[in-house]
Each structure stands twice: as C-alpha cells, then as structure tokens.
C-alpha cells in the first residue's frame, strides 16, 4: 500500500515537472489536469465510463497475475468478443433485457474459449503464455477486422463501422446526462464474486498457491495444470464480457479499427491493485482519472495528452522494479528477526 502510494506520488511529481517545463502557464495547466475531471457531471461521467472497461481488464489480469501467469491476451479478447457481441446485437431479434444479456454472455464465452488456448499450451507443454497470448492478440485482431469489413460493415456509412445495433441490444444508461451504463453494476458484481472466489473457495485457494509456488502446490497434491486452464477460462470470460459491455454500452455501431488498448491498461491496473480484486476499483479509477485529466489538458492548454504515457511508464517502471523500496522491506524483516531472538 505504502509502496504503491509512493509510486503514484513520484509519477505525479514527474508529471508536474514535465508540465512546468513544457507549458507556458504551468500552474493553470496543472489545475486543469488535476481538477477538470471532477469539474462537471459530464466529466465525472467520463471518468466512470472509462473506469468500467479498465476494471474488467484489470480484474481479468489480476486473476492471471495472481496465478503467476503473465498473459496479456485480454487485449485481443476485448476486441474479438466485442465483434461477437456486435454481431448478435445487429442480427438477433430478442427482447429488451434478454438481448444484451445474450450478447454479453456470448462475448464472455467466446473470450473464455479463446483464452483457454494459451492456457492449455502452458499447462500441457509449458509454452510461455506471454508469447502465445501476444500472438493471439494479432490473430484475434486480424480475424475480428475481417469480420467487421466483410460481414458487419455498413456500406452506407462513411467510415469502417458496422451496421447499427438493434435498440434492444444497447445497455441502459444509469445516470441521465452521462453515458454511465449498466455495465458498471455488472463489473462491480464480478469484482465481489472474484474476491469471494479467490479468498473463500478451495478453487481460489488452489489458484493462489499455484501462483505463489507451483512446486509447493504440486507437492501438496494440487493439480496445477487444471488450475492454470481454469484461471485462463475465468479471466477470458471476464475480459470477453468487458469487451462486449464496452461495445454495447458506449456505442451504437461497432467501430474499433485498431486494438482498443484496454488489455494492456488492465496490466497496469492489476499492478497498481497488487492483483487484489477490490483494489482494482481504485486502480481503474485512478487511471481513468488521469486519462480524462490529460484529455482535458490537451483540449484546454498547450500540453498534449501523450504526457500521460510518461506517467504510466514511470508507474510501471517503479512498480515492477524489485529493488525499489526494498530498503524498507529489509528493515521490516530485521525487526521481525529481532523479535524472534
């Protein structure tokens, strides 16, 4: 907790330094960056809207990281499940509630099945899940783009977008005047469910032990190969739902012609949250907040929003640096040892 706060603080200080170097009105710019996201209902809405997909991917990646699997496939799954949900939203004829539910579940199931492939490769042959999942991102993007171009594309529209979704398929808005949609409820339910799964069920226990020390898990009689496949299924399901919900909640046509980036952002959220489900909420909101702040800053001042990439880089660098703040950890260890003696 202490370490994460320190990291965020350092990253913000770096951001301020850069702003003061780049901007002609640094103080004004910093104020925009810091306070614009909470300056109006619409902006607060923007933050929450952006936090929803980040929570989904952050949650999926937390599960994978918790099992010590460095799988970054949420990116491609977000995209492809979005395509799946979009095609159901366009072509199926279903009732008001049923339609989005079917589309989201289908997206989730497709996500789970796709995610299982790197999982099985890892469990059976110890193929690096990082490599296979990254390659899968390209495959899924390619196939998804093909489907968009040749099956779903609306020829009458001027851009590469799909036909319009049926109105029944689009998620309801929760707060008038914003685009905050029912996906928020779904993701919060998922977070609570994952928390209980991880800390209160025997499958969650197996997952955690496998992640901490696979040898120990094997020795205790846990079938770690099964655990690895199970984690991939669950994480894929969550990521797939996330992609579907994002598409049905925010748009009325499918219009991603590039990978949306949520998969990788999810890795950052999971790192900030130290792979704890409830902390994912905080991590996602933090990231959404500085993103919206940067957007506003780009619009209203002379600093481009790409500055945010620097903050992210600093955060990732510091969190993944083992040595950082090790000094404090050592002191804690010494204190423990002293107690023992």
């Amino acid at each position, binding site marked *: 907790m202490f370490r994460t706060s320190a990291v965020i603080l350092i990253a913000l200080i770096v951001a301020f330094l850069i702003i003061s170097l780049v901007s002609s009105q640094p103080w004004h710019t910093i104020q925009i960056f810091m306070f614009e996201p909470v300056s109006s209902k619409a902006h607060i809405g923007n933050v929450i809207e952006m936090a929803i997909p980040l929570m989904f991917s952050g949650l999926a990646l937390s599960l994978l990281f918790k099992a010590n699997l460095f799988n970054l496939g949420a990116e491609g799954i977000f995209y492809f499940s979005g395509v799946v949900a979009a095609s159901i939203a366009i072509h199926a004829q279903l009732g008001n509630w049923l339609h989005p539910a079917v589309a989201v579940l289908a997206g989730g199931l497709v996500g789970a099945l796709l995610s299982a492939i790197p999982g099985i490769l890892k469990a059976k042959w110890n193929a690096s899940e990082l490599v296979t999942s990254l390659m899968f991102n390209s495959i899924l993007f390619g196939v998804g783009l093909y489907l968009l171009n040749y099956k779903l594309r609306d020829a009458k529209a001027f851009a590469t977008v799909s036909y319009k979704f049926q109105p029944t398929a689009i998620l309801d808005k929760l707060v008038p005047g914003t685009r905050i949609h029912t996906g928020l409820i779904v993701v919060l339910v998922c977070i609570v469910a994952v928390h209980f799964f991880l800390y209160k*069920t025997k499958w969650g226990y197996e997952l955690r032990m496998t992640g*901490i020390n696979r*040898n*120990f898990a094997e*020795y205790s009689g*846990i079938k770690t190969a099964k655990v690895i496949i199970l984690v991939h299924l669950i994480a894929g399901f969550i990521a797939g739902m996330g992609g579907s919900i994002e598409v049905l909640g925010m748009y009325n046509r499918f219009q991603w012609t590039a990978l949306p980036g949520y998969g990788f952002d999810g890795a950052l959220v999971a790192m900030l949250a130290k792979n704890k489900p409830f902390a994912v909420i905080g991590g996602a909101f933090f990231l959404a907040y500085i993103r919206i702040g940067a957007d506003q800053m780009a619009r209203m001042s002379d600093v481009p929003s790409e500055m945010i990439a620097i903050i992210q880089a600093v955060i990732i660098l510091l969190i993944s640096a083992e040595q950082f703040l090790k000094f404090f950890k050592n002191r804690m260890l010494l204190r*423990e040892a002293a107690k023992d003696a």
Partner: protein
Amino acid sequence: MQHELLEMRNITKVYPNGVLANRNVNFALREGEIHAVVGENGAGKSTLMKMMFGMEEPSEGEIIVRGETVKLHSPQDAIDRGIGMVHQHFMLVPSFTVAENMVLGMEPKKGLGIHYDEAARMTLELSRKYNLTVDPHAKVEHLSVGMKQKVEILKALIRGAKILILDEPTAVLTPQETEELFRELKGLRAEGHTIVFISHKLKEVKEICDRITIMRSGRTEGVFDTNSVTEKEISRLMVGRDVVLKYEKDMKPYGEPILQVKNVSSGDEQGKQVLSRVQFSVRAGEIVGIAGVEGNGQAQLVEVLTGSLPASSGMVLISGKDIAANNIREIRKMGVSYIPEDRMRQGAAKEASISDNLISTRYRSKEWNKRGFMDGRKIRKLVDDLISDYKVKCSGPAQEIGMLSGGNMQKVVVARECSTNPKLLIAEQPTRGVDIGAAQFIHQKLIEMRQEGCAIVLVSADLNEIMELSDTLLVMYGGEVVAYIDRPSEVSEEELGLYMLGLQKQSEEEVRRASHL
C-alpha cells in the same frame, strides 16, 4: 619449512539468512602442493572456497596471500592475486569456441574487433605448455565434460592463476577422464602451481594430494599429511557426531508392514542408474532411517515413494497397494505425509500466510468446506491449535510464512504433515538448517508419531538424528542399499562412516534382511 602461500585465519561466515557456514576456520596452503579439502555436504567447504575466490566475503577473520593481508571483494580481486577457480558447474559460453571462451573479458584487440587468430594462438601456446590438449577452434557445446574442464583450467591459467581451486572436479568425470585429470594436476604441480582439491572421495584424495584439511559442520577438524592418515581415520573425522542427543523410546512390537519397497531400480535422464535394486519395508510404529552422503540415491528414492519419479523396475506397495500409477494426490489420500527436504522450494509457499500453508494438504476435503466455501471458522480454529501445539513463534495465523525463521517455518511444515493422522510419514532431512530447539521439538514429534503407530521413513545426512531416532537403519551408497543395521544406537560412527563412504559393504543376504520377511 615450506612457504605459506595463502592463509585464512579464524574465518567465520554467517549468511544473511542466518546460516552459520564457517566457524573459526583456519586454512593454510603451501606453495607447490595439492591440498585436499574434504567433508560432507554442508560442512562448509564450498563457502570457504568461495571466500578464497572473492565470491563471498568473510564475516570475521582475515585472508593472507603471500604475507599480505587482503580483502577480496570480487573474483577479479582474487584473479589479480593469482587465484583461479574451476567450478563444479562449468562457467563457459556454449556457443563460443574454446579460444573465445579463453579470452572472454580480456580479448586481444585488432582495431575495434577481436583478434581471433591471436586468441587461438594464445590458447594453443598455453595448452602445449601445460600439456592440456584442446582444440582452440572447437565450439564448447560440442566438447565432452572432461574437455570442458580442461578449458576451465586453462581459462584460470591464462589469467595468471598460481593457485587453482577445483570444486569436486571428479564428480562429473569418467574414471579414464579422472586419471587424465590427475596426470595433468601432477604436471601443474611440477610447474610450481598450487592446487586446492575439494572432494569427498577419499581414494582419490589419498592418491593425489599432499595434505588434507578435514571439515565438519563449519569447523576444521584437522590438517594432515596424506601419508600419515588412513582412510578410516579420515572418515571418522568427517562423519563423527558433535553432540549426542538421547531420546526416550519405549519398545513395543511393530505392526503390519505399511510400506514395502521391492527391488526398485531407476535411471536418470542420462540413463545413469541412480537406484539399484532397493528393497526394504517399514512396519507400523517403526522408524526406518536411511543414511548416506547426499547424492547417493536417497532423493530419488523419496521421489519414487511420492510418485514423482517412476521406477524403471520393481514395486512400491503402501498398505499392500501398488502405487505405480498414482500421483502424489492419490498417494497422500492413502494416508501418506511427506516432509520435503527443501522447505523453500516445496515445503512452503513463502508469500502465503501461515494459515494457507497449514491447510494445503487438507483444504479439499468436505470436512473443511461448507456449501462451496471454505469453512473459515473451523480452519481458524485448526490453525490456532496447530500454532500453539507446535509452538510456532509468529505474530498470528495471517503472517507471511516467509517472515519466519527457518526453525519456525519448518515447524509449520511438520505441523501440517503430522496433523493429518498419516499411516506413513516420509521425513526428508526434517531438521536441516533449523536451530537446536526446533530440531529437538521435531524429533520428539517424530517419536510421538511412532508411538501412535505411524510408519516413518527418515532420510537424513545428520548422523545424530538418524542414529538416535531410527529403529532400523539402512545405508545407501551409489544408489544401492549397502548396509542394514537393526540396532542403530549400538553401531559405531566409524563403522557407519565406512559404509557411507563406500569403503565397506554388507553381503546381499545381510542387506536383504531389510525387507523383514
């Protein structure tokens, strides 16, 4: 009187994790000798050598090279003073040629590039000078183990080493290669080099060394001229006991055989025989000790018993059932518990809580689950009870186990394994690296389990432990059971040492008594 080339005085080394590897060790090297350092695994040989080569720094004491007190902070410091080391696991770049490996870090330059021909010439010149024939252009990955070792020796020599440390050089060699190595070492000695030879093969030591330093549990047990001591004396000094622990055990008749090992053999990946026709049985209420110098098949035997290594022939029966097709989960279900040798690798999940570590072998059963969720209250009670029964010093069940001291961590492992009422307990080095208090506690626990009728296999390199706890004792050497001793407390350490070091062996019939038929 020969000149003392290198001296290590009152060296003490404590590792950051609290392991005391060397205590007041004194070591002296004379110019132009081959000096053996012998001792069991964990006696502190390697640590001493690492300090001599600058890989570790002593916590106390001083190192004197050619009359000058030095501080060796890195291997480079040692190399600068003419000390070279050949590691047991070679440190070569496989995809480079011999010549490239030789000059790594000190490449002769031609413009910006490496002067490869010069490197090859240097290699050839040196290999001729010392009669260590190597092909400078051969790639290291294509070389045999013996050849690689030559490259390592030459690598040290090209850096100007006058003192060569060889860490168990013969462990990986065939007998022919060993002979060749000895010829080369004698050649080096004739050239005025000084050699430190680490080994626990006494025959070799007698054959080629001038003097011997014997180490045991981090201390030097003495320095001898090779001619003045016999192998028996060396073995006694190597494996003797420090403190004699005594435990009360009441005698009662053994029960049914729980574990039966029948004629088990197994090979490793290279096809080398690591277990050969091992046969014994363990009855309810009996502790069978398996003694031996590490690396003589004990680890593989445990792997066979716990289902992680298939036996190539023979059978293992637990309560009369063949376990060949079973994995560790099913074996555990048959009532087997297992305290593994390495608690960091297998025995514990370091970053998990004490509570999580205590339930890893039982969380699955209905008893600990309620409507799909783990029964938190019941688990909490179990964990609290175990922590107080086993006197685990900790801040509470939620504390990370990695924060505990070695002894307390091991108590958690023992608590987990002993509290499931096992029929058979396999304890592999159960007190390695733990303090005396925890060790005694664990020993008491094993005896308690025995009284309750548990069959126990105790694998240990600690003579004290094995002689005091075992009801019957097997000694393994080279993958074979070489001795069966039915009254371990009456056997002498000397005798045991002879079996452990392969100097003596019982007849087939004597050994076969171990199956209690």
